């Protein structure tokens, strides 16, 4: 039977790789994320070596006793995983470079549309403007409410105004149609 007790050096190495990999992956810059992914990937690849048990002879027929052989299957899997990781590293590297070309930095950015929706939600404004959200004074009811509630907050004034402007346009459109 194969001795499955792992080598302590490998265990510590996996721990170190994974810790630093996770730390780097939590950064915003794509290059650091890439480095983190490389470390994390290598840590997981070493885990396969642990899974293979204690190192032994090369698993070739005629090379000593079968019980002294290393398990070859994890090595095959690691090889595949390394190839995949290499390909992905190449792609992410290219993407980071492209991001730097376009924006002058390679940071993973937030989703602007999501932010916009969240701002609307915070103001309790309708996500979509429609004829039936307008009232007679050409201001959407929800916006009026938001305006009243937001009077105490200085920084949201500007936002409200631009929204009201939009509402006017919309009402005129509705009027034209009728």
């Amino acid at each position: 039977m194969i001795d499955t007790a792992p080598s302590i050096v490998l265990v510590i190495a996996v721990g170190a790789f994974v810790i630093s990999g996770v730390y780097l992956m939590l950064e915003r810059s794509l290059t650091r994320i890439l480095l983190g992914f490389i470390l994390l990937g290598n840590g997981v690849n070493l885990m396969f070596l642990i899974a293979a048990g204690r190192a032994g002879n090369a698993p070739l027929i005629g090379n000593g006793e079968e019980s002294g052989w290393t398990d070859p299957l994890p090595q095959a899997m690691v090889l595949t995983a390394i190839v995949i990781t290499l390909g992905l590293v190449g792609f992410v590297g290219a993407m980071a470079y492209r991001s730097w070309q376009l924006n002058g930095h390679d940071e993973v950015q937030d989703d602007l549309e999501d932010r916009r929706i969240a701002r609307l939600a915070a103001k309790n404004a309708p996500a979509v403007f429609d004829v039936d959200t307008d009232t007679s004074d050409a201001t959407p009811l929800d916006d009026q409410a938001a305006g009243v509630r937001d009077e105490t907050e200085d920084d949201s004034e500007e936002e409200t105004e631009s929204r009201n402007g939009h509402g006017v346009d919309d009402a005129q459109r509705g009027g034209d149609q009728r």
Partner: protein
Amino acid sequence: MNIDAAYLVPLPVVIPLVTAGLTLALWRVPKLQRLFAVAALALMVVVGATLLVAADSGALVMHLGGWDAPLGISLVVDRLSALMLTVSAFVLLCVLLYSLGQDIADGAAEAPVTIYYPTYLILAAGVSNAFIAGDLFNLYVGFEILLAASYVLLTLGGTGERIRAGAIYVVVALVSSVIFLTGLAVTYAATGTINLAHLAQRLPEIDPGVSLAIQVLLLLAFGIKAAIFPLSAWLPDSYPTAPAPVTAVFAGLLTKVGVYAIMRTQTLLFTETRLDNLLMILALATMILGILGAVAQSDIKRLLSFTLVSHIGYMVFGIALSTRTGMAGAVFYIIHHIMVQTTLFLVVGLIERRGGTTNLDRLGGLAKASPGLAILFFIPAMSLAGIPPLSGFLGKLGLLQAGVQFDEPLTWVLVAGAIVTSLLTLYAVVKAWNKAFWQAPTIELPQERLPRTMVFPTGMMLVAVLGLTFVAGPVYGYATRAADELMDPSVYITNVLGGTS
């Protein structure tokens, strides 16, 4: 008969991979590229249909290179796999025709993006590989193939917006891949095998704690791919930025591969510790929070992406019930959802073309300008919302019946949640309909007819969506037989390990 059909099993992977190489070599001759790509996918549909028939009389197993199961790589096509293969091949073909039509209409037919067809075919190979994988590592490789292709397709052209969305998508997918790989290493260390059938025998024998850890790792990895609630935030952000056909094929297929993997591992490997309650709560959260997100959106692509997330909840619900009827409902729902969601995204591509935008604030008047487009949107949208007699209604009905049969407080909560989600879906798509088709046009619509080459493939998908309603009986019967097979892991085990082929 059975032995002959087994030789077809690797074809859904081999055909697109070989063709991908060919099309890449033929990058100077776009006409041949297109011809080969379409022929390959059409052939995949034929192979898929043949497998569908053959697998109904017993799973087909192929041991690659003649190495027997626990050692060699085995490819397995049972009813579920065959069903998924056929549907995905058909969807891939329709979307390819659509993007081809787009190229022709745009006059880009003579100079298309060289790598589009090869990458698309590799995506097809990855999806098929995940469906026929008989061991966890091959499943991982299938995932990686399709993900690598999806990275390229999502960032096609490398514009600022696509790179931004692509960065998020790629990083999230990388994390899920690493988690999956960790799961594989732990599995091998604990059991000494990664063959699914072999694992099904060995996992119950090991320490339940370790088995649970493996299960959670795999669920995490698949959950990210399938966009189940706490792991779903990446999807509505990244999908809408891609070109319309790419979004359509991603929305239709990629998340379903994750759902398929969950279904396979939950029914085959973890029959004793099922985490069903956890999955049910996640399903509920996915449904409700997803659809609330959809209601808030003002961009039709994002709206549909959120409904995509939300409806994954239905499938997880069916899986979590872990009864025969629940599983059958989930299988049927996957089929329905692949078709409907793809059709909707293709139609959105047409809407964007006709109306000039996908922003619901600015769209309008399309019903008058393009009645055909209105029909193309209306039918799948109603099917998504679950209006009878369309297939969405049948799928939801099956799942709700299964939930009611289960008769536990939690499943009743889920049944209620599923109905609320269905109503909110109706609200969301009707809102989109009102804004895009009935509202007075805000901008002058371009006087352009939609190119027939793009409308035709969308029409094909629509016919399939409608057809699914008409042949729902046989399909549901097939799904139920697939569920029977899933619920009895011993069949799978004897097929793979004790198979005669």
